[in-house]
């Protein structure tokens, strides 16, 4: 018993960091109505500011009190700039747009710190003394008590502020009913700004004081947002005290799992305790939160209904698809090998983005787990080939089936969840699949990798090493590019036909209003399940293509940051359109555009991360419907003007 108590106490430090970020997420949601994925990144910025001021990184050194004060000023300034430049222009945009914008802020903040201060972790000067307290026959760090005490104290102060002040009352009013708040003379914009500053101060406190608990780098604090989201969801993104308590509890539960992992009864894989059990716990907690605390998150009565971009009915698909496919097929032969590979990467990226067009664009389900589904298909292909000697086409079919199966399991959890809440569930699912599945030596990537042999059909090699090597005679073979092209074209046509058919109309009805759809005799559950199934199938195809493209499967290719980037760039491309998927494919990792930017302008790595983050934010503000949506709208307007001109001319002639 004393050991359990000890490990509960040892989890306080981690719990406090999770709790602080969860409180920051709740404050932002109350003030602005969106889930801030960049909450941990704000804490990181404050940490970097304090470190730079204390260590002379900026050319001068200041004392601890002044460094703390200046770091608070910095974090408030950053918060104000982000609020005014990013979130306020998107106030009436769809929730997904705001979620993606916060992802853009996260990417930009990470890239800026990487470029400014390098990839190293930095020695954050600890304000809280690094001492231990001897208790329960062990040493417990003092910082764990101090930091958790600070977070609990801040939470109670904020609770009092929201409970007993006019500002708190106004915030609660605006968060419950935006319209009524405006009628009462309150300014939601000002309230949003004030709450953003408050969240910034909480997160800044974490960044400055967590030096003795959390490492100062560009990943540790930013990605603690995932368990923090679990705590925030338990609090229904409303209660500060519940978010704080849940954050502390998650930290302590994780510590207990570490203790349990040393026990003989704890399941093992290849001699090591199962990895990813903590992430599985967080996922389970989020799903439990959804069932226990209600399916939907509190929404605000808004002046303007916030919805995803339009889904225009595709016209002339064949006319566009056939010449484009022909051009692409020829390009795969005539292009030099490096651009041939970049084009192949783009084609696979298009397939991956198509899965998001179906599930998010058509049905409005924000699923971050799609890339993980692709990973499941990829690993299945590898394991079947290596462990069972099963190759093409049975292995990819089995891989796709596995992806569809997991997609349907995800769908079951989505039946009660929608919108940004589903995004949170699927982020946690993606983290759990990555850590519990892909990192596991037995069913994920093995110690010596997960090789994938070339696909061969009737003795014909269809893989990147096929004997036909294009005009330059180099690897990769255009044959695999053609396979990827065929998959991209066929799946694009499938998605177009779904949109045109009765199923597509039902999907749009569900996306628009589930209750109204049910009222119109649409089986919402079945529509969702079918949509998840189709999108998982497409993701599975992408996963098998990734596997054959690389000749191996690596867990890193299916990580959560990449999954978030995928959904962000799919949204920026135009998440409701097949042409949007094409844009997303063009900017996929090592796709045509990133490769060209790297080759011709040397823009890659961290600079590309910064560029990507800024372009994402700019695109969202300028074209909330994405590049393809904006392009489509321009074409439509031009066609309309042309038609009007023709009508007026014929009238004049008459």
């Amino acid at each position, binding site marked *: 018993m004393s050991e359990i108590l*000890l*490990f509960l106490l040892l*989890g306080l430090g*981690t719990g406090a*960091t999770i709790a602080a970020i969860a409180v920051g997420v709740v404050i932002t949601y109350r003030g602005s109505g969106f889930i801030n994925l960049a909450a941990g990144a704000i804490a990181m910025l404050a940490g970097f500011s304090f470190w730079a001021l204390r260590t002379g990184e900026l050319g001068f050194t200041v004392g601890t009190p002044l460094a703390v004060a200046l770091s608070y000023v910095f974090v408030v300034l950053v918060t104000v700039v982000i609020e005014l430049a990013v979130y306020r222009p998107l106030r009436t945009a769809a929730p997904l747009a705001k979620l993606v914008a916060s992802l853009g802020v996260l990417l930009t903040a990470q890239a800026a710190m990487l470029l400014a201060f390098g*990839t*190293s*972790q930095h*020695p954050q000067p600890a304000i809280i003394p*690094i001492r*231990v307290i001897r208790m329960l026959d*062990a*040493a*417990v*760090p003092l910082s*764990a008590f101090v930091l958790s005490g600070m977070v609990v104290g801040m939470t109670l102060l904020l609770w009092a502020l929201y409970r007993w002040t006019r500002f708190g009352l106004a915030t609660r009013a605006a968060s419950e009913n935006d319209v009524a708040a405006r009628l009462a003379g309150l300014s939601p914009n000002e309230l949003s700004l004030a709450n953003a500053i408050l969240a910034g101060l909480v997160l800044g406190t974490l960044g400055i004081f967590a030096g*003795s*608990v*959390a*490492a*100062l780098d560009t*990943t540790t604090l930013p990605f603690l947002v995932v368990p923090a989201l679990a705590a925030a969801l338990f609090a229904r993104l409303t209660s500060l005290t519940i978010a704080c308590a849940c954050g502390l509890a998650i930290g302590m539960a994780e*510590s207990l799992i*570490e203790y349990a*992992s*040393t026990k003989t009864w704890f399941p093992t894989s*290849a*001699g*090591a*305790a199962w990895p*990813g059990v*903590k992430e599985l716990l967080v996922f389970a907690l989020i799903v439990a939160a959804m069932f226990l605390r209600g399916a939907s998150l509190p929404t605000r009565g808004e002046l303007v209904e916030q919805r995803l971009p339009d889904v225009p009915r595709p016209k002339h698909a064949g006319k566009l698809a056939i010449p484009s496919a022909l051009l692409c097929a020829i390009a795969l032969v005539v292009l030099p090998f*490096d651009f041939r*590979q970049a084009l192949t990467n783009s084609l696979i990226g298009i397939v991956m983005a198509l899965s998001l067009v179906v599930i998010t664009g058509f049905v409005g389900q924000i699923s971050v787990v799609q890339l993980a589904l692709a990973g499941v298909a990829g690993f299945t292909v590898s394991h079947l080939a290596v462990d069972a000697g099963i190759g093409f086409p049975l292995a990819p079919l089995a891989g796709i089936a596995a992806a569809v199966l997991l997609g349907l399991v995800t769908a079951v959890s989505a039946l009660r969840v929608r919108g940004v809440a589903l995004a949170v569930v699927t982020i946690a699912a993606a983290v759990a699949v990555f*850590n519990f599945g*892909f*990192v596991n*030596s037995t069913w994920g990537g093995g*110690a*010596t*990798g*997960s090789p*994938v042999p070339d696909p061969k059909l009737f003795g014909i090699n269809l893989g*990147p090493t096929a004997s036909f090597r294009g005009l330059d005679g*180099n*690897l*990769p073979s255009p044959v695999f590019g053609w396979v990827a092209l065929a998959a991209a074209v066929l799946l694009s046509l499938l998605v177009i036909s779904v949109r045109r058919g009765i199923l597509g109309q039902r999907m749009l009805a569900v996306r628009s209003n589930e209750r109204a759809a049910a009222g119109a005799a649409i089986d919402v559950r079945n529509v969702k399940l079918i949509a998840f199934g189709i999108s998982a199938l497409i993701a599975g195809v992408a996963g098998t293509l990734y596997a054959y*493209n*690389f*000749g*191996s*499967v*690596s867990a*890193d*290719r299916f990580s959560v940051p990449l999954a978030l980037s995928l959904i962000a760039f799919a949204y920026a491309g135009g998440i409701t359109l097949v042409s949007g998927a094409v844009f997303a494919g063009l900017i996929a990792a*090592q796709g045509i555009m990133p490769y060209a930017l790297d080759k011709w302008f040397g823009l*890659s*790595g*961290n600079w590309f*991360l910064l560029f990507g983050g800024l372009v994402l934010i700019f695109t969202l503000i300028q074209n909330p419907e994405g590049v393809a949506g904006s392009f489509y709208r321009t074409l439509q307007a031009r066609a309309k003007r042309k038609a009007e001109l023709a009508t007026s001319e014929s009238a004049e002639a008459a």
Partner: protein
Amino acid sequence: MNRSARSAALAGAALVALVLAIAASATTARSDRATAPTASAAVTNYLTYVKGKRGKANPRLSKVYIGWVNQQGGQVVIGGLATAGAQLAVRYVNDQLGGVGGHPVALVQCFIKSNEEEGTTCGQKLVNDKRIAVIATGAVATGAQSFHATIRGAKPVVTGVAVTPVDGAQRNAIVLFGDAGHILLPFGTYARNVLKAKTAAVVYPQATGITEAALVIAAGLRQAGISVKAVGYTQGQSDLTAPLTAAGATTADFVAPYGSAADCANQANALKQLGITDSRKIMTAPLCLSPQVSAALGDWPLWTYAIASSNYGDPTDKGMPAYQRVIKRYKAEKNAPDPWHIVAFSELLTTVRFLNEAAANNVSRITPARVLARAKVFRGPLALGSPKLQCGKYKNAPGICNDMFQAFTYQGKFAFKRASGWIGPPGK
């Protein structure tokens, strides 16, 4: 492992160890049964090592190209200075060692920044370049799988220290200094013979490659008859007091924190918080001896390091003065102590040796197969590395050439104290 080969190696090593034990007055550490000589086998003359000709390479002759791949420029950089080490070696070879058969050597570089796709891109770039007969790699984790899957054995790949187990598993690979899966087994030897440890704690982040390596440490400790508790934690987790306590680190005789360079600072902070500060009983791999870690902590952690190469701060290493002369000549003092710089410098010199052997005074004879054949029969001593190499000793990792290390206790400010000679896996 091949048992007869191992027995022969152990017998030979034991004989030399006997001689060495008399001479090993510089160290307080005890030699192991598997200890091999250091000083007598050190490479002190790079000209004879690379089998070159004194003087400059002839710039009018065609160049001999070596592919070079490293992971740098993205969010994760493991051995950023490996490229500088490789470039220095090429410059030195062209200035002083006559290039390859008088032809200047040039690197065709390809860097992986952050995507698996870049491994494929680099693989294609180097495998398609017909001028390149051999590829050398620095510290590559991201994209390692796709890189090797693209090369598919078409060209030999020479690696200094392999970051992932994928490299050593390739038949066309030559991993000169070894990889985690093999050079970590002697942790057990060190704990048993030097510390007389009975209990050990191993903590590691749960990540592909790292988990397997930590299990190798645990296996080595168990082979040495030591009771082990190994605890994994989520990669990126910053507060490590709970996993360390769970592993029993506070009371263990030997503590092995393992991970990538990004994990070292967190591990060091947590150990310090728990009051575990005996630098001899905390042992890890030299991944922590990186600028990234010294930047994070102000200096490297005061632990003992299992180093499969020479150590810049070791005054007893007879191979080091030759390296230091090159460093001084090219004013590269800033990068010199970095282990990745040392390893890459040695790796490129060794690659040039393979090329010179394959050329046999006629560079047109150089083919990937000839280079690979020469590399596979190389038995050392390795410049700035192990006194003997055993490429092909492990059937499941045919690329691995070394499974021994030297232990050094870091005393701060770039000062090391030798804690053992070259030691191998614990005997049964």
